[in-house]
């Protein structure tokens, strides 16, 4: 009784009846995970849990993540054109499921709330026997679900989460992140900003008043100040703010000539729309053109902001217009199935699913500890971001970061960003210890 | 010195002098009626007695203690119970519960956090409320929702609730207003019986002369916020000032 035991599958017979009153039938009592880890798949299939926002403001992003997962499952089971499996440097995956087991999946709704996300992750682990949880589109959810998976003894492959905390102070041995983070955004953006806007700039930050905002502001500030920029002011804005006029109006008075919007999602759409509305970009300050920077871009958010993104710099994890073989294969595969190009959220989720499957194949086991070991310090290529390292110390992927700009003349509703620069891995790598946190030991559960 | 002494009470609402200089003394164990035409200030005076309003001037003493500045529930705890013009009862509760509440208020005071006590085991209270219902001839209706009672029963219930607190002074605000003649007579009988059965002082504000003259031992006539005369019913009947005040009013009312 005292062992953590969350599984449904792989029942073994012990013949003992303990404490269940009024039972006269012969019963099978599951006392322990025979295989030594939570939800060890038995039989011919393995269940993965896709935990994405299906309601709430990030529902569209979640829908795209879900499409990517469905595609990944199809490819893993040998369907479709195989997608990135053809370009992936590791050739462990055979298209016959994972370790010969057919991949099945269950879905849940995170609602972009940590409570709801944990509830749905727990239901997938406890009820559906999911051996891995993946997905999500905010750092709050990622950190919460990651901690849960650590406790339950399953692997968590993070979806879209950009805060340093996920693989920083809140990192966990069972959690892995392919997506980049605030630090990398800052490090990648700063040189490009200096090249384009000069090193003598005065920046005004508007920062979403929560963890992700703080780390992003910090990252961009540090790296731009290192280039010679001055930070005039940094103002925190409430998460629930919808109209940013009172924050944007004083920007020009401050003498700043660059506005950095450390916002994501609806906040970013609204603050950027408001800033452009105020005509900031038509202004001349200190003899220079006034500029706006959005550290973290996503195509879906760019779509929400419409024409306002034109010419605005930002960073992104991946973009469908990349021309490497991996990206092309993924866009081809996704686009053929769904009729439009994938978002960066879709990409990172698809890649995470494949990386997990590959790690299981290489480890020869679904045991989270074995899988974790296979992922740690794993180097791979052909997944769309160039050569990539899954660093063992913090379970963070290190790869090239894209600096993008809102496109001036989009040809379609998906063609909103253009790649300005691919910042090489070496420029965005940092020491794993700078964000603190403790990875702890891997937990196989049962 | 009566049980209730009102001295020099005045109350203004903006530009309106609702009460001028009211002096009134209600003798213990008497039935004292306050009558007067509409707008004479009867209700204002009553509200000053029970703590709903605080007079601008003067004093109100109940049994030697000032009631001014006290909250309605404190004044009630001093021994003054009030019956409203339209019966104020707990409509969502049963008749029995309606009767229990004042019993508890009498025994346990203004606030007792007895959240764990089982009410059905409190036989003292149940008996007291049960007796009171019997006295009011309502024992058969104890399980009914109070809101579903007839108007006359609601009035009985309200009076019973007040009596269960064993008040020393019972204030009645036009207790028969809007009642049919039969109900009015029943109420008069009830009040007479109450008067006969216990040591209680009754102050009654009333419009209906029939009621007043059936019950009152003393009558104060109020007009335009000041007492016109105070005397026994017989004297009041023929008093020219009263006739004058009422004639004027009766014409208006027609």
């Amino acid at each position, binding site marked *: 009784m005292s062992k953590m035991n969350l599984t449904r599958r792989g029942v073994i017979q012990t013949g003992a009846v303990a404490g269940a009153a009024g039972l006269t039938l012969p019963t099978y009592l599951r006392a322990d995970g025979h295989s030594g880890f939570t939800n060890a798949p038995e039989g011919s299939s393995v269940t993965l849990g896709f935990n994405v926002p299906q309601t*709430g*403001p*990030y*529902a*569209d*992003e979640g829908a795209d993540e879900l499409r990517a997962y469905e595609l990944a499952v199809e490819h893993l089971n040998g369907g479709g054109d195989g997608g990135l499996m053809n370009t992936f440097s590791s050739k462990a995956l055979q298209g016959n499921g994972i370790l010969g087991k057919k991949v099945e999946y269950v879905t849940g709704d995170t609602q972009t709330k940590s409570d709801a996300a944990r509830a749905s992750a727990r239901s997938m682990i406890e009820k559906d026997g999911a051996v891995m949880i993946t997905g999500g589109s905010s750092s709050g959810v990622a950190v919460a679900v990651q901690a849960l998976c650590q406790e339950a003894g399953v692997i968590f492959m993070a979806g879209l989460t950009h805060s340093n905390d996920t693989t920083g102070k809140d990192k966990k041995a069972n959690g892995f992140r392919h997506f980049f983070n605030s630090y990398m955004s800052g490090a990648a953006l700063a040189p490009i900003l200096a090249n384009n806007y000069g090193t003598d700039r005065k920046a005004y930050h508007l920062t979403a*008043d929560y963890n992700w905002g703080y780390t992003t502001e910090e990252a961009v500030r540090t790296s731009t100040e290192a280039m010679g920029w001055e930070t005039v*002011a940094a*103002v*925190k*804005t*409430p998460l*629930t*703010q*919808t*109209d940013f*006029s*009172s*924050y944007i*109006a*004083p920007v*020009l*008075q401050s003498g700043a000539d660059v506005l950095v919007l450390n916002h994501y999602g*609806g906040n970013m*759409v*609204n603050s950027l*729309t*408001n800033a452009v*509305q*105020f*005509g900031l970009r*038509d*202004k001349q*300050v200190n003899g220079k053109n006034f500029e706006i920077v959005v550290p973290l871009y996503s195509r*879906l*958010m760019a*779509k*929400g*902001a*419409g*024409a*306002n993104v034109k010419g605005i710099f930002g960073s992104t994890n991946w973009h*469908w*217009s990349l021309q490497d073989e991996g990206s092309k294969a993924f*866009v*081809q595969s996704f*686009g*053929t199935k769904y009729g*439009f*190009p994938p978002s960066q959220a879709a990409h990172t989720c698809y890649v995470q699913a494949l990386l997990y499957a590959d790690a299981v194949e290489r480890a020869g086991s679904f045991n989270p500890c074995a899988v974790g070991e296979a992922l740690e310090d794993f180097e791979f290529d052909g997944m769309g971001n160039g050569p990539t390292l899954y660093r063992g110390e913090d379970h963070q992927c290190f790869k090239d970061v894209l600096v993008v700009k809102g496109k001036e003349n989009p*040809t*379609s509703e*998906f*063609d909103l960003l253009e790649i300005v620069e691919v910042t090489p891995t070496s420029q965005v790598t940092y020491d794993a210890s700078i964000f603190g946190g403790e990875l702890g030991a891997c937990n196989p559960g049962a | 010195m009566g049980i209730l002494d009102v001295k020099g009470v005045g109350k203004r609402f903006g530009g309106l002098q609702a009460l001028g200089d009211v002096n009134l003394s209600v003798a213990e164990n008497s039935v004292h009626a306050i009558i007067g035409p509409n707008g004479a200030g009867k209700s204002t005076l009553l509200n000053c007695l029970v703590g709903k309003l605080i007079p601008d001037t003067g004093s109100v003493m109940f049994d030697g203690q000032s009631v001014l500045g006290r909250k309605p529930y404190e004044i009630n705890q001093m021994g003054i119970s009030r019956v409203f013009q339209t019966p104020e009862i707990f409509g969502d509760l049963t008749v029995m519960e309606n009767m229990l509440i004042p019993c508890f208020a009498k025994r346990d005071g203004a606030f007792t956090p007895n959240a764990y006590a089982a009410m059905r085991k409190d036989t003292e209270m149940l008996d007291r409320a049960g007796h009171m219902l019997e006295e009011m001839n309502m024992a058969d209706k104890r399980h009914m929702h109070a809101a579903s009672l007839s108007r006359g029963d609601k009035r009985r219930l309200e009076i019973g609730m007040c009596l269960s607190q064993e008040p020393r002074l019972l204030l009645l605000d036009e207790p028969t207003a809007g009642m049919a003649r039969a109900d009015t007579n029943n109420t008069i009988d009830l009040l007479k019986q109450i008067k006969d059965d216990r040591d209680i002082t009754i102050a009654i504000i009333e419009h209906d002369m029939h009621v007043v003259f059936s019950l009152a031992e003393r009558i104060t006539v109020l007009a335009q916020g000041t007492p016109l005369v105070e005397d026994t019913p017989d004297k009041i009947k023929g008093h020219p000032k009263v006739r004058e005040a009422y004639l004027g009013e009766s014409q208006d009312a027609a």
Partner: protein
Amino acid sequence: MEAIILQVLNGLDKGSAYALIALGLTLIFGTLGVVNFAHGALFMIGAFCAVTLSRIISLSHEVVDETQTDFLGNPLKVEVPYVYDWFGQAAGDTIIDWAVPLSIIFAIPVMVAIGVLMERGLIKHFYKRPHADQILVTFGLAIVLQEIIKYYYGANPIPTPAPSAFVGSFDFGIMLGFEPNQIIYPYWRIIYFGFAAIIIGAVFAFLQFTTFGMVVRAGMADRETVQLLGINIDRRFTLMFGIAAAVAGLAGVMYTPINSPNYHMGMDFLVLSFVVVVVGGMGSLPGAVAAGFLLGILESFASMREVLNVLPGLNQIIIYLVAIIILLTRPRGLMGRKGVMED
């Protein structure tokens, strides 16, 4: 000084939006005695009227452009709006550009119809029910409405820009003798303020100077008496609900260029608009307007970095803090009547 003038402008602008939403809410409460939690949804539907109309206007057919390729390497299919075919590209662009102002004409009948439908179909049956039931049923309706919108339009915000003629901002500073760029304000927000002022004025004038309005005002004061006079107050109230819905809808239409509309914008405004109405005093039209501007201005001042440096986090709570202080010092809000919604 410049900073203060700027925040007053911001406050007026924010306040006009708050007042406009609160106005419809308190109108419905005042006339019908109904607490309408679906009012935010009406605001949202108004905004989506603009989205819908601009989609209708820019309905397109596909033309294959062999010179360009799409993301899969196939020839690019270019969407050509029908208005290009009918009016030529220049005129077509202008029409598409003016979609938001055009939506006003489109939104009025739609919103009035929705309002009347809502009142006749649902709200009517709730006049005599407790306020808690009204809150719940309208809240349920709000969820249903926003889910329907989400089903058809997605969860992502949809950019709905103002006509290009109104892009950019007006420099008040130069007018007042300050340096350029010190006090600038976007044209569209100035228009929004003016629009709100006109609507608020129109509603007041309508209630003040028309017979219809007089009956409604009398009905707000005492419904039964008016009914005794043999006036069909119910029909007038139905229309009043339609008008309130239209006011909310128009507020939504005009708001689209300020923030890209999304399906949950109504819920975002719901709590705030209730705070405004209650601070103003339930059922008081001038109260709602005054509270809208008061909260708008205070919120703007609380967002100044000079203030936040001293009191970090004040911008997070200012609205609620003000609401608490006002309700504790003025029991029924700024202009509330006694006995309304107190039980």
